[in-house]
């Protein structure tokens, strides 16, 4: 077993006492991507432990793993001190050292600890005081004393601590458990009036979220971002994706598009990220030649961006419907759906040609001067109260446009239905 201890002095400074716990919860969720045994302590400064012995092989050695963790912390813009030792207490103690903070075996740990000052030990102040008045200065001198004498003088718990420090006795800790839903909050010390100012704290929230998703090996289709206001209900932004995603960069891009045309009702004093449903990640491997799957993924990213900026219903695809009335022979459809059910195009070969442009609403027009072809009679719809009885013609307008017009047999009026273009 090898424990990585992270000392995070900046976290305590940034957050108030209440939100330090929340920040540590988020950080534990983030750290879960590297280790299944994560624990933390809300001391001053806060400490976070990860057991790395079990994950070393997966990530290609301690050095590579340590580099990844540190790169992640730098991305989160958190100042930190890392230490690696075979025991949790040992790692925590070594975070106070100036250098040589990584030891891999128990004999090495003992050698490393011996010259360190006595007051770094996590023992009660009176114990330290008593030891110092007995003339002891460093940890090595204490460790040289017989264990039975220490136990008699300072109690068995001191002796246990020293054995745990050296890794000679097990140090069981309750492993932190991943929550089944994700909720992360962060409060600002001041009120933010600009949406661009939100991007910095947002980036950290989303990176932590990415760590959680990687740790659980899952992805999301939607998550909610709440912009909290003072004395006003929070503004909710629901970010939807067309394919399961778990990349912070992708999330940030979508949120940025949404924030781009958002007008804040009031200054923002906090952010909250919530995800309640998770799905299996659909990871597409990168391919040297642009494969169809990769193309589809790029299209999904495009659709997400367009929806985020323009609105969800502004991006549509089309579908055919079996109806004789031209305005009902089609419908909008959500994009990226393969044709389902009955294949309507089979009948199309036997249908008369149709124009490419359809008017959004029927416009009443004057009787056309020049008719190029027709009539084609369409009578249908007696069953749904939208009865149509029409004679369709192609008419030539003065500017050379070819119009698709019909004469309504019931009222004798002429209407423009589309353009032959």
């Amino acid at each position: 077993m090898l424990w990585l201890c992270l000392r995070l002095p900046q976290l305590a400074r940034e957050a108030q006492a209440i939100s330090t716990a929340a920040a540590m919860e988020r950080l534990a969720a983030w750290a879960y991507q590297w280790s299944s045994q994560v624990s933390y302590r809300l001391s001053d400064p806060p400490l976070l432990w990860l057991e790395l012995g079990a994950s070393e092989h997966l990530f290609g050695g301690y050095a590579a793993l340590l580099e990844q963790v540190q790169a992640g912390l730098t991305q989160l813009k958190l100042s930190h001190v890392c230490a690696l030792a075979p025991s949790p207490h040992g790692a925590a103690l070594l975070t106070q050292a100036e250098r040589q903070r990584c030891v891999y075996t128990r004999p090495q740990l003992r050698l490393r600890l011996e010259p360190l000052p006595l007051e770094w030990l996590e023992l009660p102040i009176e114990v330290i005081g008593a030891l110092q008045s007995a003339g002891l200065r460093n940890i090595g001198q204490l460790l040289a004393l017989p264990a039975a004498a220490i136990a008699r003088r300072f109690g068995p718990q001191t002796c246990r601590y020293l054995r745990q420090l050296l890794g000679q006795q097990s140090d069981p800790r309750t492993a932190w458990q991943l929550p089944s839903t994700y909720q992360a909050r962060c409060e600002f010390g001041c009120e933010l009036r600009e949406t661009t100012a939100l991007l910095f704290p947002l980036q950290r929230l989303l990176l932590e979220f990415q760590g959680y998703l990687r740790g659980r090996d899952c992805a999301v289709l939607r998550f909610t971002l709440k912009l909290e206001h003072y004395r006003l209900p929070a503004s909710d932004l629901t970010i939807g994706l067309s394919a399961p995603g778990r990349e912070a960069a992708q999330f940030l891009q979508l949120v940025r598009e949404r924030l781009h045309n958002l007008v804040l009702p009031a200054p923002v004093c906090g952010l909250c990220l919530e995800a309640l449903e998770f799905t299996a990640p659909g990871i597409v491997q990168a391919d040297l030649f642009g494969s169809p799957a990769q193309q589809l993924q790029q299209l999904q990213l495009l659709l997400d961006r367009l929806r985020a900026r323009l609105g969800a219903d502004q991006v549509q695809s089309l579908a055919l419907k079996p109806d004789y009335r031209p305005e009902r022979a089609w419908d909008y459809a959500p994009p990226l759906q393969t044709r389902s059910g009955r294949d309507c195009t089979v009948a199309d070969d036997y249908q008369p040609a149709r124009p490419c442009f359809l008017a959004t609403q029927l416009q009443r027009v004057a009787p056309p001067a020049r008719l190029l072809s027709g009539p084609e009679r369409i009578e249908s719809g007696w069953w749904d109260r939208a009865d149509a009885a029409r004679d369709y013609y192609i008419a030539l307008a003065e500017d050379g446009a070819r119009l698709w017009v019909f004469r309504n047999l019931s009222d004798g009026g002429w209407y423009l239905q589309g353009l032959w273009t």
Partner: protein
Amino acid sequence: MKPPPATLEQLTRLCQNGDWNREPKPALPSGFAELDAHLPGGGWPCGAIAELISDALGIGELGLLMPALSSLVRAGRYIAWITPPYLPYAPALAQRGLPPERMLLIRAQTLQQSLWATEQALRCPAIGAVLSWPAYIVDRNVRRLQLAAEAAGTVGFLYRPPEAARESSPAALRLRLQAAFDGILIEIKKSRGGRAGARLQCPHSNALAVPTPAAARA
């Protein structure tokens, strides 16, 4: 110092691409032999913007693209329609070989949004062609779109009002479209790597694209 071009073929490439070592850019056959003969590479330029300056709506300016679009869809690509003035009619598109589920209809509230959407669509490799009807744009906007199209190799068709014919534009191809008896009159205003000034007439495509029942059975 580069050596001067040695052959006539290299000289042609130099005129077309500005570099005689580079292969000519791929083109997308338009499906109209008369038009292809006048376009460099024999078709719509890939990775570029083509401006279609149409005198009126409904003179066949969309039919001109149908054979090219249908070949793109057969190759598995999608077609983006950005703020069209009328609804693209799904049954008609299906008749011309464009399955409706391959169409992406994008609406935007403002000109800025529609230009942004056009650029995003042009940059996506899954999209074969982008058809856009921006309200009023200046050459700076067109240049931006032209760069986006060059980056991804997509064809962008910009429909512009007749007033645009008087202005200059960085688009690779500019065509002026006018109604003619039984067809559409095309005047090539600008053609990068080709010759401008030609006038030609193409027939309406819907007359030939619709298979008769006998042809469909065969």
